[in-house]
């Protein structure tokens, strides 16, 4: 297997392959099912493909990777699925990264969707090509196609053991009608040779030798390096600017203002002043020397501490019910005992190691009209880049050419292409390629932040200690405010991440939302609203266990109730748009991961740890996958927390690349450790108070979990999410462990705000 030198491939490249005699296949999924056609110049133009596979006459198999690689291994995993069904020799596969093109289908590498959306389509595409090659060989030999099998890049006649290589069949295979997906024979799982097996990612050697090209590394001939001074407050703008000193900095070439978004922030720039230079450093120095007078705009009084208090007041009052079962009001009054708690999670920043970066080359004609635009970007969603850049430049979205580089992680930040628009408008203005680099300070100060939230939970418990009523009120600024300034309370897709999808078996349930205005750009961050909502739900379950004097694990299992499926329709849950046939909310599977994580952690044996040590447990269904976490902590007499062990059990259905899944599960525990220990962005006068890793701290090797034990459950269920699935239950399991170790219940994150000296 190899990767192409240039990062991207266009449909045109495939047409070139056609003329050279390759077999080119395109697959398209629609509501009617999946269709595959052989490509001709006409069909490439007329047929919306979402996948290209081509086989050249020398046997080279080209597979297009149309999702972005940001560390999940997807650029390797999806082509592996095609290659498996095709019976291709992995060493003869070339992976080509797609440009942004809506005809390729969904390219938004976000929401833990890639394998879920494309596993089946990739298999069908691979099987289609294999079947055509088998048919071709059968005709050549004058035998039945049923006696011919694609095996490791050649077709074998099983009776005579005659063989013919794929490349030698291509010329004739092109002439065949493409078989209908219903007639294909997919390989049984027992014959999979790549799916479920590990292989180094395609980019491994480049990464290890410094050759890998990320957005920050992408270069265009004659490019300028730009950094921008953006309004310190969202919605602010430039009153006046004096660029004299900036222009006097050696290496600075130009200073250029760019406009702010109009209306809602969406994915358009924050606006500001760009300093363009012959190096990033000169641009940074130039920005230091800029004199800008800002109009701070309408959010200049945003104070996140005060806002958190307001959110607290909001959730102390009845809100808008979004899920109602039974009669919570009466049950709360009638309960033998009641218990309530309020939880708080502050704003968080994505802080991927590579900051947002893009380089654009925009050409204009003599009238200033844009004639072409090429962008190389570290983007999770090249189509979103097209959709944001097109209107900004007054050109058709599909004419914006977006090459996707490797991403130095994304976590949701790089699905929002404001930085690509910045590069594009600067290139248009300066008539040469411009590379925009966000400094770390820019990245943390001007992020699309994770929201700030308060969650109130209240329960009545019966004689058996189990709840008879559960009332949960959530309030936080919504992501929808990015697009609609009037959106002022949690959206249903947000509620569904750990609030309205409450899995516990309780007769009376009411979930309410409260209003919350947005004063910064709110965006989705890996696992999104599960971060705060599962923190609350899984912590409160443990509080009830303690109240009942019960074992936390046993109590949790009782709370989950009988094996059953949640009635998604009755609960009005969208299930992320997934079919409940393929992806039921299966309490049995949730209990299973919980049971299993208790087993592998030795929960029962470790029940009576000495003071200062403790285990915590939590479980969650997120992004259609199921996770159980047990976290072990040691808390020193001075209140220093260490995490010697984490156990995680994941049921994500069929898994294509087990080691890459395992790596993401490990990484989720570490990212969640950072967030729980230190994660907090605060605002004063609308300005973020943190701006680099000294003030927005990260867990490092020394304070990350020492051992992370991961078990992936074998499953033949439809593939679910992975990347975000194992984030949510970590923080509550950690805090439940801290309670067990210290008697201190953490309801407000982060931990470094608390004295954790054991009681």
């Amino acid at each position, binding site marked *: 297997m190899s990767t192409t030198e240039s990062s991207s491939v266009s449909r045109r490249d495939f047409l070139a392959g056609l003329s050279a005699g390759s077999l080119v296949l395109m697959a398209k999924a629609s509501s009617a099912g999946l269709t595959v056609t052989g490509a001709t110049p006409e069909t490439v133009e007329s047929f919306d493909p979402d996948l290209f596979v081509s086989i050249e006459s020398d046997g080279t198999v080209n597979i297009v990777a149309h999702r972005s690689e940001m560390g999940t291994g997807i650029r390797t995993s999806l082509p592996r699925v095609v290659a498996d069904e095709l019976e291709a020799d992995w060493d003869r596969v070339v992976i080509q990264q797609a440009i942004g093109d809506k005809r390729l289908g969904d390219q938004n590498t976000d929401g833990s969707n890639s394998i879920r959306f494309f596993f089946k389509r990739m298999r069908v595409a691979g099987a289609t090509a294999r079947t055509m090659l088998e048919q071709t060989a059968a005709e050549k030999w004058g035998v039945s196609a049923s006696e011919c099998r694609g095996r490791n890049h050649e077709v074998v006649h099983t009776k005579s053991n005659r063989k013919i290589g794929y490349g030698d069949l291509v010329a004739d295979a092109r002439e065949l009608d493409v078989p209908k997906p219903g007639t294909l024979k997919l390989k049984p799982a027992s014959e999979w040779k790549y799916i479920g097996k590990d292989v180094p990612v395609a980019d491994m050697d480049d990464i290890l030798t410094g050759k890998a090209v990320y957005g920050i590394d992408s270069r265009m001939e004659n490019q300028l390096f730009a950094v921008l001074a953006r309004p310190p407050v969202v919605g602010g703008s430039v009153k006046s600017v004096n660029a004299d000193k900036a222009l006097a900095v050696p290496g600075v070439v130009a200073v250029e203002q760019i406009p702010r978004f109009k209306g809602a922030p969406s994915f358009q720039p924050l606006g500001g002043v760009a300093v363009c230079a012959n190096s990033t450093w000169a641009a940074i120095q130039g920005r230091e020397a800029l004199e800008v007078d800002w109009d701070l705009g309408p959010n200049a009084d945003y104070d996140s501490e005060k806002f958190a208090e307001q959110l607290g007041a909001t959730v102390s009052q009845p809100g808008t019910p979004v899920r109602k079962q039974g009669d919570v009001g009466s049950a709360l009054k009638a309960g033998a005992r009641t218990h309530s708690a309020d939880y708080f999670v502050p704003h968080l920043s994505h*802080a*991927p190691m590579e900051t947002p970066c893009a380089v654009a080359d925009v050409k204009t004609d003599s009238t200033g009209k844009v004639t072409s635009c090429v962008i190389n970007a570290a983007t999770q969603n090249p189509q979103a880049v097209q959709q944001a850049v097109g209107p900004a430049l007054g050109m058709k979205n599909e004419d914006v050419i977006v090459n996707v580089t490797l991403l130095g*992680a994304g976590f949701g930040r790089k699905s929002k292409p404001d930085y690509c628009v910045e590069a594009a408008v600067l290139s248009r203005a300066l008539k040469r390629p411009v590379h925009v680099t966000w400094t770390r300070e820019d990245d943390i100060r001007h992020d699309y932040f994770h929201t700030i939230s308060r969650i109130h939970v209240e329960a009545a418990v019966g004689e058996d200690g189990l709840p008879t009523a559960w009332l949960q009120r959530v309030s936080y600024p919504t992501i929808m405010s990015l697009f609609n300034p009037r959106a002022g309370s949690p959206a249903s897709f947000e509620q569904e991440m750990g609030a309205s999808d409450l899995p516990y078996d309780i007769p009376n349930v009411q979930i309410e939302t409260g209003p919350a205005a947005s004063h910064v750009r709110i965006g989705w961050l890996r696992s999104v609203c599960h971060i705060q909502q599962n923190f609350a739900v899984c912590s409160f379950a443990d509080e009830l266990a303690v109240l009942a004097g019960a074992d936390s694990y046993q109590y949790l299992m009782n709370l989950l109730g009988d094996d059953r499926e949640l009635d998604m329709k009755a609960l009005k849950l969208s299930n992320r748009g997934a079919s409940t046939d393929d992806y039921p909310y299966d309490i049995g599977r949730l209990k299973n991961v919980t049971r299993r994580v208790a087993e592998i952690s030795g929960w029962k044996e470790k029940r009576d740890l000495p003071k200062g040590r403790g285990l915590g447990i939590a479980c969650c269904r997120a992004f259609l996958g199921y996770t159980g976490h047990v976290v072990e902590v040691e808390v020193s007499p001075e209140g220093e927390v260490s995490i010697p062990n984490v156990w995680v059990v994941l049921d994500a259905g069929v898994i294509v690349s087990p080691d890459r899944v395992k790596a993401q599960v490990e990484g989720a525990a570490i990212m969640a450790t950072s967030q729980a220990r230190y994660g907090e962005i605060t605002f004063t006068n609308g300005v973020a108070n943190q701006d680099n890793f000294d003030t927005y701290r990260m867990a490092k090797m020394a304070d990350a979990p020492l051992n992370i034990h991961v078990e992936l459950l074998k499953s033949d269920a439809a593939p679910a999410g992975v990347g975000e699935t194992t984030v949510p239950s970590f923080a509550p399991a950690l805090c439940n462990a801290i309670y067990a170790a210290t008697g201190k219940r953490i309801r407000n994150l982060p931990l470094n705000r608390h004295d954790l000296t054991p009681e």
Partner: protein
Amino acid sequence: MNTITVNGRQHSVEGVPEDTPLLWVLRDHLGMTGTKYGCGVSECGACTVHLDGESVQSCVTALSEVGEGNVTTIEGLSEDGTHPVQKAWKEHNVPQCGYCQVGQMMMASAMLKKNQNPSDSEIDEEMWNICRCGTYNRIRAAIKTAATEMRNK
């Protein structure tokens, strides 16, 4: 300064202001983009290179401080990607996004030059690089594998 030595070769830096951090000299003036920007303030280690064999953070090392010193970057850590840390990183499938791994490997290789049998706490102390994907446990394992190879050489 007119030249600096990177990976054993002289490179012209004529006209580059002497206060320019080595990071940007490497990346923007010499076109060697293997060394990564992460924070600019020596908090994350992504930009780590070797100066006369010692790990330094190139984001806070001015060109003037490099002087006659020998700079080693990832491009020169080995000829063909076979330094023991590179091999160990591959064996343990360490990288996720891979962005910080260059700095991690430069930090680890400098440490292993001095200490070929590092304890967990010594690794904790030396390896303060940030990885946002969360590869710390594999880095620790890879360092031990590389250390074993280096000891046995």
